[in-house]
């Protein structure tokens, strides 16, 4: 029982991200409105970003900015005192790319609305078949 509880506590963060990711994926699959699909895509991206950030965490470590970085005496930093900077770098760029993809996605949605006067997927498909 104690071991099960330990597993529950130590992996709970991953399960939150998996639940978030599944909410986003369900939004992409099941919602018919294109804007809702884009919102689902954004929730999925957020889940992946949180997952990466949590990989970088270390117990008893601080943010990856070296204290007294310019004093030559202290320049040798211990790896256990600072969290892993690499996931932060990757996600920093991923957030910006998420904004860029959101911009292009909204652009396409505006064009689709200008063409078909609706954003519901089934109505757009009907209008395409009519032609």
């Amino acid at each position, binding site marked *: 029982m104690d071991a099960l509880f330990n*597993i529950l506590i*130590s*992996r*709970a*963060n*991953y*399960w939150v991200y*998996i*639940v978030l*990711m*599944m909410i986003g*994926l*369900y939004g992409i*699959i*099941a919602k018919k409105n294109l804007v809702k699909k884009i919102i689902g895509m954004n929730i999925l991206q957020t889940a992946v970003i949180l997952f990466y950030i*949590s*990989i*970088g*965490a*270390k*117990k*008893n*470590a601080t*943010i*990856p*900015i*070296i*204290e007294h*970085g*310019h004093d030559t005496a202290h*320049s*040798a*930093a*211990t*790896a*256990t005192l*600072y*969290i*892993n*900077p*690499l*996931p*932060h*770098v990757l996600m*920093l*760029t991923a*957030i*910006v*790319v998420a*904004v*860029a*993809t959101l*911009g*292009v996605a*909204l*652009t*396409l949605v*505006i*064009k689709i609305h*200008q063409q078909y006067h609706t954003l519901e997927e089934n109505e757009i498909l009907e209008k395409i078949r009519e032609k």
Partner: protein
Amino acid sequence: MKIGGLILVVILGSVLIYGSLEFPPWGDPVSPASSHLSPYYIETSVEDTSVPNLVTAVLADYRGYDTMFETIVIFTAGIGCIFLLRIFRKEETGTRLYRHIATGITLRIEKGGKFPETSAAFERIDSVWVPHDLIVKTTCRLIVPFIQIFGLYVIAHGHHSPGGGFQGGVILGAAMILYAVAFNLRSAIQRMGERLTVMLSTLGVFIYAGTGVLCMLLGFNYLDYSALASLLGVDPVTAHSHGILIVEIGVGIAVMAVMVTLYYNLASAGKHDEGL
């Protein structure tokens, strides 16, 4: 469709949760992700680049190529938005509406009627009912310069505190978007025209790629900032720090310009008229 999606999502989620049992626990200092490359970055990056903020050092120096193409992705998104949405032909609606700012009286100019576009006492409006919010406009006019100064601080201080080109660029772009929301799109475009935003986004990418080419011309590898030591008159380690600042400024300019471009085109569906 809904039931099928739900079943698929539940199956995939339970597979992922089963897989997560093998993952290292939260905050494990010897997890695989933290035990190979990241100790090298933490221990040597101050010696290599003299930048205390490891995220900035890794972003712009060790992974400089990645960040350069990331900037190009942003640039491509802005250009793609313009190509997809922008409507260049001017539609002549015939009647135009102008509002006297002090009194709120609306003038309707019929087709053929002349009106001085540059008059400061009047502003052009598209729909009849757009309220003139004095409080919102005054507050934003006071706040925007401080937001911009904060954005510049975030770009310039990215070496020593959380920050850098991407974050500062987004803050600068948000200041411009706040101005456009509080006033209207026309006055924002008068302040910062479309041509200027496109030129700035190109300039940002050019600064980043040009720094790399400059390093090559001086006989070093692409984006190896040690080459700048002779130009800047500092030792090679400090040259890394200055090189990072130069490319971060390029990133900041490009991100700011692309954010503003995306807002201009999305808010007005490419027509660049009144907008939201």
